[in-house]
Each structure stands twice: as structure tokens, then as C-alpha cells.
């Protein structure tokens, strides 16, 4: 078994097959429903609309009828940060340790009762994966009945974001503990979005475990901060060295190119030697 230097540590990650994603939005709603995400009367101002999982629509920029579109689901990337040591852009800036990197799972946590709402993490996150509770979350009368006790509803004035459904991990671990198993099975811990996706476009698992599907799909390079060796796989803004744990796969070159910024001519050079550029 290949393991990284953290020994038996997990490194949970997600792979999204963009060629299968249809942009249907199930993942978004499954996430909202699982995580007690509030809603308000007008959610069309997307910049203050809390969507831990947001599906972006991107286009190839060509005119009719050469136009192509692709949907890109964007949860929290659970960045490992520079060198993949856990100094995620957000974790390293949070002044009150309200968001932290869990080395045993690779998950970036958010402690709502610790956060005092300075929003520095939001500025630091290039993916806009973090959301601020500008409003008191309010549910129409009676609807608070569907709130799940697994995730505490947030209060106004704090930041929230995708947790990779951490409570499901805890639950799976608790079950394994009760059943006296050392570890959890791949299928025991799946995020709500993965589970709901009707297209099967989302795969979730342990990037440190070669038996897991996510590992086999992207072949993360342990010596290169988990950069995918699969030439069809990429991470968003790879060049910033945020080292996200969410990978995307697409057969379409323009989609892979849209994953990062490239100077003129750069893409032509890097597109084919993907995963081999051990600088």
C-alpha cells in the first residue's frame, strides 16, 4: 500500500467528470438539503446566494454554431495549499483558527461558532467557495422541521462553506468503531452531492488509497502534491499551487484549458506533457 508521509492519513477528494455532468443542479440542492443551507426571497444575486456547491456554466467563447458549453460543479476544493502541507489559502489567513486543515482526512473545516466574520478567508479563496451569512437564516414557518441535526444551522455574520459532508465521515467512522473495524469502506463515506448526482458524474473517495476509484481515475502524483497524472484530468487554478482535492476530467481540450490561466502559447506547451512536468 502506497501511503503518503502522514502514514494512515486519508486524503478525501472528488473527481467530477465534466463530460457526464449535465448541469442539472441536483448536487446543489442535495447539498443545500443535507447541510441546512438557508434560502431567501431573492436568490438571483448570485454573489450573496449561499451555494456550497455551485455549478458554473462555461463556454468556449466561439460564435454560433461553433459554441460549446460545459457545466462545472464547484464545491470547496479543500486545498492542501502550497506543498500540500495544509496551508490552504483560507486556513493560513483565518485569524481565529475558525477554519482548519484536518491532516487525518485532508478536509478543511469551518467552525461556525468560532468564526467572527472577518471574511479574510473569502478574499483569499480564488474559487469563491466561501459564503458569508449576510442575513439571519430564516425558514418559513414550519420548514425548520426538515432541518437535519447533523449540521448546525449557521447564525448571521459567519462564513460557511462545503465540508465534504464531514458529518457523514464522522458517522461512518463511528459505525466502524462500533463494529470494531479499523477503517471505513469507500462506499461508507460519500458526500450528498456524489450520492445525488443522477449522471454519476461525481466520484468521491480517498486519494491516498490506490484501491479507490478517485485514485484510479486521476492517478494523483504523490511526489507532485497530488497533481493528476491522467492527461484528461486537471485541477482548477493548478498554477496557484493551492493543490485542490477536487479534480475534473474532460475529453474536451478547451474545457481543460479553461481550468487555469495561461499566457499566450503556454497551453500548447503544457497540454500534452500533463503530469510529467516535475519541476
Amino acid at each position, binding site marked *: 500500500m502506497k501511503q503518503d508521509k502522514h502514514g494512515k492519513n486519508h486524503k478525501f477528494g472528488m473527481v467530477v467528470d465534466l463530460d457526464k455532468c449535465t448541469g442539472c443542479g441536483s448536487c446543489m440542492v442535495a447539498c443545500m438539503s443535507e447541510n441546512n443551507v438557508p434560502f431567501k426571497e431573492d436568490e438571483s444575486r448570485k454573489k450573496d446566494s449561499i451555494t456550497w456547491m455551485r455549478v458554473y456554466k462555461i463556454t468556449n467563447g466561439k460564435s454560433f454554431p461553433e459554441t460549446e458549453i460545459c457545466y462545472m460543479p464547484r464545491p470547496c476544493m479543500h486545498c492542501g495549499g502550497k506543498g500540500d502541507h495544509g496551508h490552504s489559502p483560507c486556513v493560513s489567513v483565518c*485569524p481565529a483558527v*475558525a477554519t482548519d486543515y484536518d491532516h487525518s482526512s485532508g478536509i478543511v473545516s469551518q467552525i461556525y461558532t*468560532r468564526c*467572527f466574520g*472577518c471574511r479574510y478567508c473569502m478574499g483569499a479563496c*480564488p474559487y469563491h467557495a466561501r459564503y458569508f451569512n449576510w442575513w439571519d437564516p430564516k425558514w418559513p414557518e414550519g420548514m425548520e422541521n426538515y432541518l437535519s441535526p447533523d449540521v448546525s444551522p449557521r447564525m448571521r455574520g459567519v462564513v460557511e462553506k462545503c465540508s465534504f459532508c464531514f458529518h457523514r465521515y464522522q458517522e461512518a467512522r463511528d459505525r466502524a468503531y462500533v463494529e470494531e473495524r479499523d477503517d471505513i469502506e469507500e462506499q461508507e463515506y460519500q458526500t450528498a452531492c456524489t450520492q445525488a448526482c443522477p449522471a454519476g458524474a461525481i466520484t468521491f473517495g480517498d486519494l491516498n488509497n490506490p484501491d479507490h476509484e478517485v485514485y484510479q481515475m486521476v492517478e494523483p502524483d504523490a511526489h507532485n502534491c497530488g497533481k493528476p497524472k491522467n492527461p484528461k484530468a486537471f485541477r482548477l487554478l493548478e498554477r496557484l499551487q493551492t493543490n485542490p482535492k477536487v479534480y475534473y476530467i474532460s475529453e474536451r481540450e478547451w474545457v481543460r484549458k479553461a481550468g*487555469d490561466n495561461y499566457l499566450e502559447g503556454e497551453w500548447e506547451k503544457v497540454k500534452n506533457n500533463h503530469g510529467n512536468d516535475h519541476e
Partner: protein
Amino acid sequence: MDSALIPKGAKRCPFPVFALGIAVVGVVLLWGVYAMGLCWFKGLNQTNMDDYYGFALWIWADLAVIAIGGGAFFTGLLRYVFGIDELKNIINLAVVIGFICYSSALLILAIDVGQPLRSWFIFWHANVHSMLTEVAFCLSLYFSVLTIEFVPLILENRKLDKVPFFHNLGHNMHGVMAVFAATGAFLSCFHQGSLGGVAGVMYGRPFAFREGLLVWPWTFFLFTWSAAAYGPCFTLCVLKMFEKITKKKLVKDNVVHLLAKISGWMITTYIIAKIIDTVYWATVTAPSQGQTFMDFYSNNPFYGVWILVLEIVVCGIVPAVILTTQKFRENRKLLLVAIILGTFGVCLNRWVMVLQVMAAPVMTFDTWAMYIPSWQEVATTILPVAYGVILIALAYRYLPVFPQELELNADQQD
């Protein structure tokens, strides 16, 4: 009416005129307080900030007042540590301005955070790797230093000075002021730097990110340097305003010119460093992240190269040239132009390092985020200005802020 409190021999406007002025500004202050109350009791939905613009007008105001309040630490450093004695004639003003600026900054921060009642978590649960933690610690400690520096001036009030305890306390504090000033300079260097670091460490934001030295990005040093350089410009601006309003000369020209000259050379060195930084960032740092210089200055309705030209050339090189050239800085009008441009320039720099950072897209499919502050944000930003005007007016009326005032206005004395 309040003549017993007015420094001996100083001429001040009649109390009703003064009170009327304070009342007018007080209305503005109350407007700000009302907006502040809205933000505290209804939440930050009162602002036009959003998830793309988590840092906006307030953080800019914070950075700007701290930068222009930098005159206090730098003048203090020159006066007490480097022993430039002439500056004692302007240090009081610098300290009062510093006190106002820093207390304003703390107030704005208390409005800006989503959970003000938890803001002490930044101390208690401190993340020592966060620039903001460093800012919070140094800012609050330096604010206590400024308070310590302000206290002796208050104790010099004619009435208070009659109390032996206060008289002695003021005297003794003066005695060890160098220690406080040195500590303050140390703290100030750090938090000015940390405020620069706030932007510079965001390696997910190519517009802001800078390489640097050890844990500090170049913006850390640039912010400290620019605050030291431009802070005195603002001190001089306030002095000029005072002289205009009171129609009196309050500080001798040699003191003004000395401070202007020091500021000029600081700006010169700063702007050279800033140009080097900008060139390196534009040609090395940003391209390594796949972004070209023009990516940051195009495809949006506001931010163009003009803002960089304005900051570096108009508000950097121009005041530097004026202030370092004796002939220019001794020309009253040019001096005024230079210190106003300088003050504006450092504020603009802080604007760019907060708002343009938030505006520039990073993901290829993201778009520029634009933002216009709500009236509540504007009111709460004007609130400290009104508070500052009132405080500085009170200080001028009742405290011997300008030691040379009586000498320069001997003919007007009662």
C-alpha cells in the same frame, strides 16, 4: 465661558461659535452612529458587500486611516529615537491625528466583522500565521501606546495641570516617552507591514500576491515604508487646514520644511521600491500564474492602467520631486499640492490593494466584480471623520497642541 480651560495666552473663537461648529459636525456623527447601529443590529446585509466583495470600503478606510495616521509613529520615531528635536513642535499634532486614526480604525473594524461580540477570539484563539492576527495585536497595542503618548498632552490642559498628580504624571511620562515611542515604532512597523501582508500573502489572488522575505511578502515592507513616507504628508495637510481655518501660523516653516523634506526622501525611496515591485510582479510573479499585466487592467468598467499611473506617477513621483527639491517645497502652493497628492496617493494605494484585489477575477470563467458602497457604509466611513474633526477641534481649543502658537501669534494675544 470656557476660558478657564483654554491654554493661557491663546486666542480661541467665542464658545457659541465653537459649539455651533461642533453641533454641525455632530449631526454628521449621529448619522454615522445611526448607520453603525443598523449594521450592528440588522447585520451586514445593510452593506453592498457580497461574497465576492468581503473586503470593501471599510477595509479600505481602515488601511487608509492607518496609513495616513502613520505620521504619528514616524514623527515619534524621528523625534524620540533619532532625536530630531525640531519635530517636537509638530509631534503633538501627529500624536492626536494618530490617536484619531487608530481609534477610528478599531471602530470600523468593530462594525466590519460579522460577529463583533466575538472579535476577541482573534486574540484568544489567535492563528499566529495570519497577517490579520498580527494586525490585531499590533494595532491594539499601538493604540495603547498612542493613548500613552496622548495622555501627557491632555494633562497639559490648564486646569488639569494644576493638579499636582497630573502635573507630575505628565512630566514623568514625558521622561520615558522615548521608550514608549520606540515600542510604538516597533509595533507600528509591524502592523503597517502586516496590513500590507494581508493582501500580499493571498497566493490565490494573483493581483495581490507578492513574493517576499521569510514569511513577509514585499507588500509588508512597502506598506510600512509608504505609511512612514506619506503619513507626514497627512500631518502637514491637517496643519495647513488648521492654519487656514484659524487664520494663524501654528508651526514654523523650518519645522514644516524639515518634515516635508524627510517625507520627500521617504517617498522617493518608497516609489523606487514600488516601481521595482510592480515591474517584478508584472513580469515575473503574475505571469508565473498565467496572468498578464493587462489582465488586471482591462475588461472592466473602472480599473484601467490609469489607476496605476495615478498612484505611481501623479501621487508618487510628483510629490517626491516637489518635496525633495528645496525650491519647490518652500513654495507654499507646490508644497500644498505635494502633500495633498501624497495623502491621496497612499489612500489610492490602499484602495487598489483592497478593492481591485477583490474585483479582479481569477478563474478563467469568472468576471470582474464591481461594487458601489451602500449609504450605511458611506455613513459609517464618514463617522470617524466627524469624530476626528470634533476630537481635534477639542484638542486644539483646550490643549497646547502647537508649542509655537503663542510665539508665532504674539501680536494677537489677549
